[in-house]
């Protein structure tokens, strides 16, 4: 009976968890001596609650930080973010010159077509694993399936 109640409770609790899907993810290819790289993607929130991306973890890098490039009077500023907001029934687009996940101090700079696993952790304690390919540029819109 207790088990049944727990199962029921967890079923009831499910919709509270983030319903996040990750789309159009890519890591920008970088020179072999690049001290920092960036990952981009669209975070889609299919749930009814606003969600915050709190952190990203990637093996093989010294540090991973959430950043946003902002144009302040013509100066492009790298602004470190405590979180990235993903609105309910909405999306946040990570792209060059804007929101990005900064991958710092690579043990070895990954090559084009290499796949890197990212673990994204959100403010409701949920986390998502995504496999992201290293590319020179995002796939153009018309070439996407």
């Amino acid at each position, binding site marked *: 009976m207790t088990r049944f109640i727990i199962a029921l409770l967890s079923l009831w609790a499910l919709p509270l968890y983030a319903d996040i899907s990750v789309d159009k993810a890519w890591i920008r290819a970088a*020179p072999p001596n690049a001290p920092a790289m960036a990952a981009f993607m669209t975070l889609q929130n299919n749930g009814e609650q606003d969600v915050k991306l709190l952190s990203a973890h990637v093996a093989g890098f010294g540090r991973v930080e959430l950043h946003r490039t902002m144009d302040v009077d013509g100066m492009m500023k790298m602004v470190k973010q*405590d979180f990235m907001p993903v609105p309910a029934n909405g999306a946040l687009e990570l792209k060059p010159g804007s929101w990005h996940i*900064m991958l710092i101090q690579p043990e070895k700079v990954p090559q084009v077509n290499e796949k890197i696993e990212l673990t994204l952790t959100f403010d409701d304690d949920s986390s998502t694993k995504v496999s992201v390919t290293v590319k020179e540029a995002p796939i153009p819109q018309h070439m996407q399936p």
Partner: protein
Amino acid sequence: MNPHKRRVLWAAAVVVALGFAGLYYQQTAVVARKQAQQQLQSQLHTALLVDASKQSLPPFALRDHHDQVFDNQRLVGRWSLLFFGYTHCPDVCPTELYQLSRLLDAMAEKKRALPQVFFISLDSLRDTPVSMQQYTRYFHPDFIGVTGEQSAVDALAAHFQVAYETVYYQGSNLIKVNKGEKIPPEQANSYLINHSASIYLINPQGQWRAVFPSPHQEADLLADLPLLAHE
């Protein structure tokens, strides 16, 4: 009036008339040049023409990624594009250098004369000719990385009004490093340089001709460069 005096007077009159004609000609030439510039400016998609007073560059001497002198002479004889940044740059520089490589590819496809592209480091502390070479050539084999004494880089950047600042984060706290201040050793690998992302166009006389403010669209540069080169 004797004939000699008359001749002198005539000569003086001719000199004065020529003087006025010269002034008039000069004046109309200035007006014509201004009008031509205004017309060119109105045709340009994003490039901004540089005021005549800023066109001559101050003398400078930096090092290219072959550890050779990079001075004013290197900008003579071909069109050049300059971009200021640094190799620890996570987002802006890779974006710009990738776009510039695409621009050169597109120009090569159209069989246009290619400009020289120089990537000038604002980070003398961490960038060396060796690191600049490896980094810059990744984007295009013809790109040339440039570094040098910070004071020399600062002086050249100042002429182009490049805005930049050194910052680092302690946790979530942003700390700005003012000129002359030391960067803490534990931040040596992580400090950032926020900088403007304009592209500067130098003509084959080694003069600053135009600026492309960021953000850049490849199509705009592709359209503006021939207008600037064939005026």
